[in-house]
């Protein structure tokens, strides 16, 4: 590479995260010939991100507040290990402007946007003000910092349904949909409580909730040389309690004209805060293809792999390249996705039991492979899923030439995937992919909660399938019983094996 002289040296990166995303970032570092430093809490000593890393530094107790959220310990670990840069991943400190500032103050490179861009986009109110100047359409909503009474008054003006959102929110926490006035007070209390416990900030605001709308987001990349591009959209309407479960790129709802307009809007929104590095503009798009800016996520997204598969770009490598001060590889936006990609988030949650999180030791793990299949995982056989962190244990991503090829491939991969020891949501994904609505692309953000259930979408099993299950259960029970008797018998013998053998032979003479 002779085109640009690197302005910043990055030879070693500290990854201030855990799980699959820490592994993902480690891989990009290795692919670039860069060393990686992992950080870990007490319960993550044997986690995959620690096992793979070149160096690993212990940073505290399991609770995030005492480890992965401890800025001082993480920066200390970076300095002690001689890292030049810190990659925050997503969640934890990824969108904490103070952290980005402290990293810079210590003379380290923060692989992400500037503290001021994080601060502006992280404060929903300032973000709306910043993008409004660029004629970017916004949903009707209230200011932040209002008391309950004022919120109730404001909501009557906006009209139900509305969404209560945490100012410091993200990942669906501290977020509640409210459909009429009667539920408003209790939803407000829950959202405040959740926001307080998740972010230490109970402040919320209210936004108009669009019914039947889609969640579509645009991936942005911007370098320090003034180039800002988008890498096309991601369809993220398959959500449950505002947590994305399945993402696709491109969106079956998109057309060339809409992609052009939304892409331009996304670039303008990023430029409104002089954005640098990777970021995502989240939008709601209604049935008539009117779109509204929701927020900007100033970090790498969980669902970034679907964009990678349809653009051929390694987003994490590109992030590091940008942080090094180089020009990014492509300076033209991606208006034509190559093929189709789908991601299913594999969560340790029981889909048959209200999606309750499940903990325990993984006793069997068979990971799908083969053409067009990618698995970004943070677990292995024998790994213990603990209650301290997110329930997402892996992401299964497939690509195909067309959407139907990708769906068929995803079904195949989901059937290959065998995880035992914890409950997981693979049966949910299989049912979802078999539903006609999903196949037809008829989805919106309420689809899972209002029109999908494990019972109604699962075709009743045939007589033959029930019989097969009955035979399997019986053979299993029979086998267990035989094993049990075999184990017990020798211990119960009162005589030595030689005597027993003699008696046996006499009996059968």
């Amino acid at each position, binding site marked *: 590479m002779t085109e640009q002289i690197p302005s910043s040296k990055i030879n070693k990166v500290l990854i201030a995260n855990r799980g699959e995303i820490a592994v993902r970032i480690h891989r990009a570092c290795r692919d670039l010939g860069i060393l990686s430093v992992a950080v870990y809490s007490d319960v993550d000593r044997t986690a995959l991100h620690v096992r793979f890393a070149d160096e690993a530094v212990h940073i505290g107790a399991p609770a995030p507040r005492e480890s992965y959220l401890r800025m001082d310990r993480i920066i200390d670990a970076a300095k002690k290990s001689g890292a030049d840069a810190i990659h925050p991943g997503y969640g934890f400190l990824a969108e904490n402007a103070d952290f980005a500032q402290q990293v810079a103050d210590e003379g380290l490179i923060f692989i992400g946007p500037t503290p001021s861009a994080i601060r502006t986009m992280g404060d929903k109110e300032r973000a709306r003000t910043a993008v409004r100047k660029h004629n970017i359409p916004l949903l009707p909503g209230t200011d932040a910092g209002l008391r309950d009474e004022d919120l109730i008054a404001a909501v009557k003006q906006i009209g139900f349904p509305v969404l209560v959102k945490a100012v410091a929110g993200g*990942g669906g*926490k501290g977020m509640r949909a409210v459909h009429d006035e009667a539920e408003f007070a209790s939803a407000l209390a*829950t959202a405040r*409580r*959740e926001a307080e*416990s*998740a972010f230490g900030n109970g402040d919320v605001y209210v936004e108009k909730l669009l019914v039947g709308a889609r969640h579509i987001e645009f991936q942005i990349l911007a370098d320090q040389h003034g180039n800002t591009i988008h890498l096309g959209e991601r369809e993220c309407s398959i959500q449950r*309690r505002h947590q994305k479960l399945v993402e696709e790129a491109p969106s079956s709802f998109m057309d060339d004209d809409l992609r052009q307009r939304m892409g331009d809007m996304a670039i303008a929104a990023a430029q409104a805060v002089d954005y640098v590095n990777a970021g995502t503009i989240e939008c709601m798009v209604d049935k008539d293809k009117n779109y509204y800016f929701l927020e900007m996520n100033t970090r790498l997204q969980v669902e970034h792999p679907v964009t990678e598969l349809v653009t051929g770009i390694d987003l994490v490598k590109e992030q590091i390249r940008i942080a090094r001060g180089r020009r990014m590889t492509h300076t033209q936006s991606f208006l034509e996705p190559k093929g189709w990609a789908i991601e299913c988030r594999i969560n*340790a949650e*029981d889909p*048959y*039991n*209200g999606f*309750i*999180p*499940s*903990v325990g030791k993984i*006793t*069997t793990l068979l990971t799908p492979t083969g053409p067009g299949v990618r698995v970004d995982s943070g677990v292995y056989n024998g790994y213990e899923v603990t*209650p*301290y*962190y*997110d*329930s997402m244990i892996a992401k299964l991503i497939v690509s195909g030439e067309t959407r139907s090829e990708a769906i068929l491939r995803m079904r195949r991969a*989901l*059937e290959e995937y*065998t995880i*035992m020891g914890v409950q997981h949501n*693979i*049966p949910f994904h*299989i*049912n979802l992919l078999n539903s006609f609505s999903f196949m037809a692309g008829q989805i919106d953000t309420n689809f899972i909660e209002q029109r999908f259930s494990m019972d109604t979408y*699962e075709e009743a*099993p045939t007589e033959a*399938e*029930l*019989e*097969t*299950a*009955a*035979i*399997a*259960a*019986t*053979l*299993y*029970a*029979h*086998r*267990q*019983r035989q094993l049990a008797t075999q184990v017990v018998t020798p211990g119960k013998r009162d005589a030595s094996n030689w005597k027993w053998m003699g008696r046996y032979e006499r009996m059968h003479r």
Partner: protein
Amino acid sequence: MKYITTINDKQFEIEIGNDGRVLVNGEPREVDFLPLEASLYSIIMNNQSLQVVVGEGDGMYDLMIRGRRYEGKVLDERAQLMLMRGGLGESDSGEITIRSPMPGLVVAIPVTEGEEIVKGQTVIILESMKMQNELKSPRDGTVQRISVVPGESVEQKKILITIV
């Protein structure tokens, strides 16, 4: 050995001979059933190859075949006989306990001791993996005892609330 096996409420009479032969409701079936790991099996039946995951708990079997979950019960002749005599009868009345499905933090308890509750009513809110989970009553009843307080950390399977 003869078994009465119930899968998703459908009953089958299954006989497994000493030679391993399988009869379903008196008709022979050719089944090749091999263990792969502790609870992972491979079945070949009518040339169909299936991977079966079996879980066991509280006398119930949990099977996963091709991404579909089945719930079943396997009773041998003696257990079946005892059930018919009423020895193992189940009932909808009596005490039930709500246990913590995972380790977590008790966030709120929206009911009080002595309160009449209905099936599906939220009785406790438990936080785990950063999500708040609402545990609901499996049937109508009265809250007899609340064994935890908000703010308390609980282990998996800890008794939280008793309903009569």
